[in-house]
């Protein structure tokens, strides 16, 4: 059995009802756990993009990608590793404003971790940090010593290090190869 590692799948699809279900089903069938999932419209109008993080073997993830691509409304699925992408997550932390006022520990952490304050009310303060999961997690653990009342983290978004968008080339090829099937 080969080593499991973290993979990021970027999947481009038509914007169809039920597509998320179709994609996650492929993971469910193989009892693969999805670590994180983000979905939104892509740079190309009408095309949706899913970014899915999963721990798997190279062998298995390639099979998963092909089974996802096989769905009629999926345009293309790309299997990427950390070396291929720049990725980010965003985390929000809510702390009672009085902990902020009672000392400078929170302020220090905000500076140290490059976080920023989004909103301050009399009762609570919302702090935002973007980064990799381990960074947002570390900040959470440090800040939680002073009492974090709410913490939430987004799924991963990723962009490839390649010059051109992977999908652009593919779509161009598809349109060129458009031929009538008999």
């Amino acid at each position: 059995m080969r080593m499991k590692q973290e993979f990021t799948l970027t999947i481009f699809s038509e914007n169809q009802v039920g597509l998320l279900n179709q994609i996650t089903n492929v993971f469910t069938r193989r009892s693969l756990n999805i670590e994180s999932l983000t979905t939104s419209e892509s740079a190309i109008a009408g095309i949706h993009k899913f970014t899915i993080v999963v721990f798997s073997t190279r062998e298995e993830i390639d099979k998963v990608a092909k089974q996802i691509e096989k769905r009629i409304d999926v345009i293309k699925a790309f299997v990427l590793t950390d070396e291929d992408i720049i990725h980010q997550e965003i985390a929000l932390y809510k702390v009672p404003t009085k902990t902020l006022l009672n000392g400078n520990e929170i302020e220090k952490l905000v500076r140290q971790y490059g976080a920023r304050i989004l909103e301050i009310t009399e009762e609570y303060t919302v702090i935002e940090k973007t980064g990799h999961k381990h960074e947002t997690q570390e900040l959470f653990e440090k800040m939680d010593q002073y009492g974090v009342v709410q913490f939430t983290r987004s799924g991963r978004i990723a962009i490839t290090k390649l010059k051109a968008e992977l999908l652009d080339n593919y779509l161009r090829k598809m349109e060129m190869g458009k031929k009538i099937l008999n």
Partner: protein
Amino acid sequence: METKSQTAIKGKSQQAVRMTGADALVKSLQNEGTKILFGYPGGAIMPVYDALYSVQDELHHVLVRHEQGAVHAAQGFARVTGEVGVAIVTSGPGATNAVTGIADAMIDSTPLVVISGQVGSSLLGTDAFQETDVVGVTQPITKWNYQVKKAEDIPYAIARAFYIARSGRPGPVLIDITKDAQFASFDYIYEPVTYIRSYKPIPEVDPAQIEAATQLINLAKKPLALVGQGVILGNAEKELLAFLDKSGIPAAWTLLGLSAMPSDYPQNVGMLGMHGNYGPNIKTNEADLIIAIGMRFDDRVTGDLKAYATNAKVIHLEIDDAEINKNVHADVPILGNVKESLPMLTQKISANKHDAWLQEFRACDRIEYDRIINEELAPSKPGLTMGEVVHKISNAFNDDAIMVTDVGQHQMMGSRYFKFKQSRSVVTSGGLGTMGFGLPAANGAKLGAPDRPVCLFVGDGGFQMTIQELGTIFQTKIPVKIVLLNNNFLGMVRQWQELFFDSRYASTELINPDFQIIAKGYHIEALKVTERENLEDAIQKMVNHEGAFLLEVIVEKEGNVFPMVPSGASVSDIRLE
């Protein structure tokens, strides 16, 4: 999709005709060439049935007795004709009853369009009467599915459904249509779909892979071709024979590859898999090259993957990229339709003979005859065997009937001992192994191939899973020949219990009704054979009878199918007893 269909309509110069969604559905089916469909009415599909009533002469609706029967019949029709089978059901239970057939069609790559009625769109999601989320339910078992909520989307949805069902690797498509969409009127125009941006049905053959495969083929000393249903689905039977003729390579077929070449083709070395022939199984691990042609290395073919094709390089000709490297690593994958890729290979390879290697298979055949086949076909014991019945019936039909089977021992016996002269002569449930498939599938097959005899082999277990379809035979007058191989057991499960569970026959013995009386109740001619001396006569009566016929043969109670590759074992460990 809505926007696409609307633009499609706007852009056309065709004359639009105002009609209801129900009429549009019927018209769209006719535009796709549908002449027959199988179904069962109900509340949420009634507008469509009303529309069907007006076109009875052009569009034959076969009223089945259960929705499972409708889908299996559509499958039988599709398998023998190569066309898209069409089934139509109502919402809720109608749709869920169709699920087994849809799953069967998915795993066996059968082109189907299943239409289901749905509650009115205003009721969706409210747990309305006979509401089921059928799109959600069938999502993993359809090639594509879609819910139509507006009449004007019907033509595009149907055009897309047929295109997807029949193109590339075929499969079932379900279109769910709300009742209000069936009632509403709109301006109908039909435009077939020939292109979907996100879908590439047939990958282009890569000449570099043909080159690489050619080198392997030319160097191979012990090559073996594995012939799957892809050859039949791709209409590539001639291309297959041309390749085999020139290369001299022995060829084995999978269960669904049966009849892709004639049974008596000199290089045909028999069937692969759990109950296949001795030679092709045992020689798989001696071969130095495996050429898989339109097959997917099902676990019933490969057994233990770690001990499969251990000495061989693998060339995999396949239309579906997701099958490449899924179970068996392909040293040379050749994506594409085998109808295109096989001739490219044939042209490149050197003409060759593999007589000595082929003789090794024939030596295996002799062992199999000595140890199994002779006793099965000409038993020394008084009890009738399934093998001898199949063999005699095949002969009585001049080895040129369409064989339909249910699932179990009789299915394996049919596959082993029935003989074929032409392609598309087998309809069987392979991947899903659906008991109850046989009888309705035979109905569809006969309606699809009215000029060929259609002979069903079915066991006493599977027969009773869809026995209500005798009603369809009676009402629609479908002249199928039903051979009931009755051992009063769920034979295949019993065989496993005997071999692997210490003969503890848990819930496998059946106390059966009198099938003769049941046939009589449906006005179907029937005969029962218990003795060998009466068999040939009865078979002749069945063959000569014009209408439907039930031939019940009481076979040995505890007969076993051998050879056998036990589940999870290597193909090398095939057992002869």
